[in-house]
C-alpha cells in the first residue's frame, strides 16, 4: 500500500473531502499564477520599454471607458464561480451523513478529551478514528476558545464555550503507527506521538494562552502550542472492539505479568486520583487507598458496606451515592471509566491492602 503523497503546498489527502478542497486550492492557485504573471509581466515589459532615457516623452492618457468597464466587470464572473464552488464544498463539509459516528470532543486549556459512542472516553489527547466511516465531531469547550484542526483531513472548527459546534470527516487511510523517536521517523505530515508511535497531528488553532513552558507530570499539555492530539485511524473492526472494551492498557503495562495492577497505578496518576487519595496511609482530603480493599466502610448519615467490587465501582461512577463518614468537605467528581479500567484500579487497590 502506498501512502498518498503531499505536495509542496499541501499535506497528503487523508479524508474524503481533502481532494475536493485541494482541487479548489489548485484552481485558485493557477488563476492567481496567471493573473500574477500577466500583471507583473506587463509591468516589467512597460518598465523596460518606456524607461526614461534622453528624448523619451510620456504621452498623456486619453479616456478608455470601455476598457475600464471591461476589467471591472470581467473578474466578476470568475469571482462568482469561485464563490459558488467554495460554498458547495463548504456545505458538503458542514452537513454530516446520517450514518456518521458521533464523537464528543471536549476542549479545555490545553487538552482534548474524546468521548466515543457508549460513553467510552479514551486517553486524553488521543483520537481514534475508524477508517472509511464518517465521523461527526461535536465540540464544546469548558474554558476559552479553541479550534480543532486536522490538516491531513482539511477540517477545522472552533470549540466555543457555551455552545456546540460540529464538523465531520471520513478518513481514507489507516495511520502508519510505527514506533518513532522524532517526527522525522514518521511518514510525511505525521508527528511522533505521545506513546512513541506515529500519528496524525491535531492542532488547536485558536490561541488559548500559556502559563508555563513544559508538560505537566501526567503528560498533559500546558500551552496553546502544545495543545495537540494524536489522530490514529484504525480499522473498523479495531474501532468496534475499542468501543466494546474501552481504552486498552498503556503500552508500558501491556504484556507484563501484573498488567492490570500496572494499568491501575497508571490510571491513578493520569486521572488525578493522586491529587486527593494517598496510597501510603497518609491523611488527605479523601480516604487513603491503603488497606481500603475489603474493609468495612461507614457512611455519613448512617449505613455501611464492605469495600468490594460493586462498592468501588459505585464510588467511582457515582461518588455522591454514599459519602464516607468524615469526608464531606470535598466532593469527588464522577469519573467515567470503562469496566476494564475499573477492574485495573481494583487490582491496583488490592496490592495496597496486602
Amino acid at each position, binding site marked *: 500500500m502506498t501512502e498518498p503523497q503531499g505536495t509542496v503546498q499541501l499535506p497528503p489527502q487523508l479524508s474524503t473531502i481533502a481532494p475536493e478542497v485541494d482541487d479548489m486550492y489548485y484552481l485558485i492557485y493557477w488563476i492567481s499564477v496567471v493573473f500574477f504573471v500577466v500583471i507583473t509581466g506587463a*509591468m516589467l515589459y*512597460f518598465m523596460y520599454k518606456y524607461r526614461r532615457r534622453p528624448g523619451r516623452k510620456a504621452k498623456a492618457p486619453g479616456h478608455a471607458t470601455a476598457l475600464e468597464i471591461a476589467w471591472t466587470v470581467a473578474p466578476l464572473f470568475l*469571482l462568482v464561480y469561485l*464563490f459558488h464552488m467554495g460554498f458547495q464544498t463548504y456545505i458538503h*463539509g458542514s452537513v454530516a451523513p446520517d450514518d456518521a459516528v458521533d464523537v464528543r470532543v471536549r476542549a479545555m486549556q490545553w487538552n482534548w478529551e474524546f468521548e466515543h459512542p457508549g460513553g467510552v472516553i479514551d486517553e486524553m489527547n488521543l483520537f481514534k478514528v475508524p477508517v472509511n466511516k464518517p465521523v461527526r465531531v461535536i465540540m464544546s469547550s469548558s474554558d*476559552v476558545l479553541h479550534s480543532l484542526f486536522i490538516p491531513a483531513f482539511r477540517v477545522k472548527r472552533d470549540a466555543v464555550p457555551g455552545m456546540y459546534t460540529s464538523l465531520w470527516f471520513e478518513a481514507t487511510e489507516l495511520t502508519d503507527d510505527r514506533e518513532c523517536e522524532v517526527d522525522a521517523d514518521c511518514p510525511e505530515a505525521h508527528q511522533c506521538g505521545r506513546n512513541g508511535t506515529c500519528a496524525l497531528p491535531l492542532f488547536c488553532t485558536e490561541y488559548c494562552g500559556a502559563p508555563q513552558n513544559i508538560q505537566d507530570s501526567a503528560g498533559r499539555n500546558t500551552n496553546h502550542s502544545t495543545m495537540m492530539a494524536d489522530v490514529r485511524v484504525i480499522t473498523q473492526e479495531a474501532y468496534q472492539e475499542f468501543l466494546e472494551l474501552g481504552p486498552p492498557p498503556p503500552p508500558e503495562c501491556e504484556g507484563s505479568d501484573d498488567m492490570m495492577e500496572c494499568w491501575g497505578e497508571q490510571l491513578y496518576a493520569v486521572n488525578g486520583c493522586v491529587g486527593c487519595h494517598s496510597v501510603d496511609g497518609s491523611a488527605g482530603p479523601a480516604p487513603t487507598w491503603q488497606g481500603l480493599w475489603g474493609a468495612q466502610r461507614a457512611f455519613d448519615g448512617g449505613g455501611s458496606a464492605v469495600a468490594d467490587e460493586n462498592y468501588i465501582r459505585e464510588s467511582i461512577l457515582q461518588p455522591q451515592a454514599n459519602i464516607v463518614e468524615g469526608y464531606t468537605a470535598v466532593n469527588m467528581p464522577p469519573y467515567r471509566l470503562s469496566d476494564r479500567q475499573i477492574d485495573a484500579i481494583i487490582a491496583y487497590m488490592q496490592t495496597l491492602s496486602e
Partner: protein
Amino acid sequence: MTVEAGTAVPSGDAHEGGDNYLTHETGLKSWLFTLDHKRIGLMYLVSVLVMFFLGGVMALLVRTELLFNGETIMEADTYNKVFTLHGAIMVFLFIIPSVPAAMGNFFLPIMLGAKDVAFPRLNLASFWIYGFGTIFAIVAIVAGSVDTGWTFYTPYSARADSSVIWMTLAAFILGFSSILTGVNFIATVHKMRAPGIHWKRLPLFIWGIYATSVIQVLATPVLAITLLLLIMEKTLTIGIFDPALGGDPVLYQHFFWFYSHPAVYIMILPGMAVVNELIATFSQRKIFGYMFVAMSSVALALLGFLVWGHHMFTSGMSEYATMVFSALTFLVAIPSGVKVFNWVATLYEGSISFASPMLYGLSFIVLFTIGGLTGLFLGTLSTDIHLHDTYFVVAHFHYVMVGGTVFGFLGGLHYWWPKMTGKMYDEKLARVSWFLVFVGFNVTFFSQFIMGSQGMPRRYYDYLDQFQPLHMASSGGAYILGLGFIVMAYLFWKSLRSGEKAPPNPWASAGYEWMTTTPPHPHNFAETPVMKRGPYDYHLCTEEELWDGFPEDFEAKKAKA
C-alpha cells in the same frame, strides 16, 4: 497678486534663504503647541517611526525565538506577550496613523493649496490625544502583561483581569484621535481647496485619505460601544461576551471585526494613495482611469463595512451568514483589481524613472498583487477552512499590510523627504536598502505561505520538526529585512546631517505639493495659488517646471543650473 500655477515658475530659488516652516519659530514649545499642520505631521512621523522601531524589535524577537524548535531565547509565556506587543504596536500605533496622520497632515493642505487644515486646533488636539493614547497603550500592555494577541478575543482576554478593558480603552483613545483627524480632513477637502482644484483635479492621494477619513469617522465609534459593553460586563456582571455569565464570545468577534476589518482599509487605502502619486510622478503620466481609481477608493471604503464576517468562517457562525460574508468578500477584489490594472496601464507609454521612491511604488504593485490574490484562497469557504488561523493568513496580511501599506509609506517617505526636510539623501544607499527590504520581506513571508498551507498554526511557540527549515528561512529573511532598515535609518540620518540641499522639485513632478518652496513656506504658499491644470497634467507643464527626457532628473537640473 496670486501665483498662477501652470504659468508661473516654481518660486523655490526666489526664496533662497527665506522663511520656511522649520526655521519660522524655534524652541520645544514652538513644536509642542504649534498649529502648523506640517509640524504636527512631522511630529506624527517621528512618533510612528519610533513605534515602527519598537514593533520591529518585537518582530525580530519573535522570529529569533522561532529560529529553532523548543526554547530559543524566551519562555512560551514571554513569547505570547512579545507577539501581542508586535501586533498591537504595529497595527494601532504604527500602521493606522502612519500615512494618514504623518503624511496626510503634512501634504493634504499643501496639495489643496490651502494654508492649513480646516481646524488647526483640533489637529493639535488629535496629536496630543494620539500621544496620550500611545503611552496609555504601552503601559496597559506592559503593566497588564497582555498576552492575548492583538485581537483580544474573549473569553480568554476577559478571564485573568481587566487588562482587556485598558487595552480597548487605549485603542479607543487612539481611535478618538483618528476620528478628529478624519473629521478635520473631510472638512478640509470640502472647504479649503484652492481656486481651480475641483473634484476632478483632486490628487489621488487626497482621494485615498478622504476615503480613509470617512471610514475612521464611521467605524471607530463601534470600538467605543465594544468598550462600553466590556466595562458593563465587568462591573455589572451582565453576561455579554463571557459564556460563564451567559454571554456569547462570538458576539465579541463580531464587534471586534466590525471595527477591525474597516481598520484594514484604514491601513491599506493610504498606502494605495501614496502609490498613485509615485506611479504618476515617476512615469510622468496622469494615472490611467483617474476617476475609476478615485471611485475604487470610495468603493473599498464602503465595501469594507460589509465583510467583517470573513474572519469568522470557522467560529460557529451560521451557515447563511458565512455564505453572505464570503460572497461580499469576493466583491472587494473588484476595486482592488481596478487599482492594480490602472497602475500598470499608467506605465504604458510613460517615461519611467527608477528612482528609489518608484522602486517602492513598483514593489507595492507586485506585493499587493500577491497579497490580494492569496486573499482569494481565504475568501473561498472551502479553502479558508483549511487555511484559517495558519501561517498562510499571517503571510497574506503581511503581504497586504507590509508589502502594501508599509511599502507605500516608505515610498512616500523617500518621495517627500526632500520636501519635508529640504535635504536630499544618498540615492545609491536608498537603492541598496530597498533591495534588502524587498528581498528580506519576500523571504520572510513567502516561506510562511507554504508553512501555512502545510498546516502550521499561527501563534505557536513551538512546532513540529517538519516546519524547521521553513521557519529558519523565514527568520533569515527577517534579519535581511532588519538590515535593510538599518541601512535606511543610516541614509536618512546622513541626509539630515550632511545631505545636499534639495531643489523644490527634485522628481520633476507635476503634483501641487512640489510647487511650493523647499522646505515649504510656513503658510505653504506665499500667496494663494490658482491652479490652471490638474496635478497629473504633465503635458501642460512648462519645461521650467519639469525637466524630463534625462535619466537623472536631479543631476540634470543641477547641470542646467
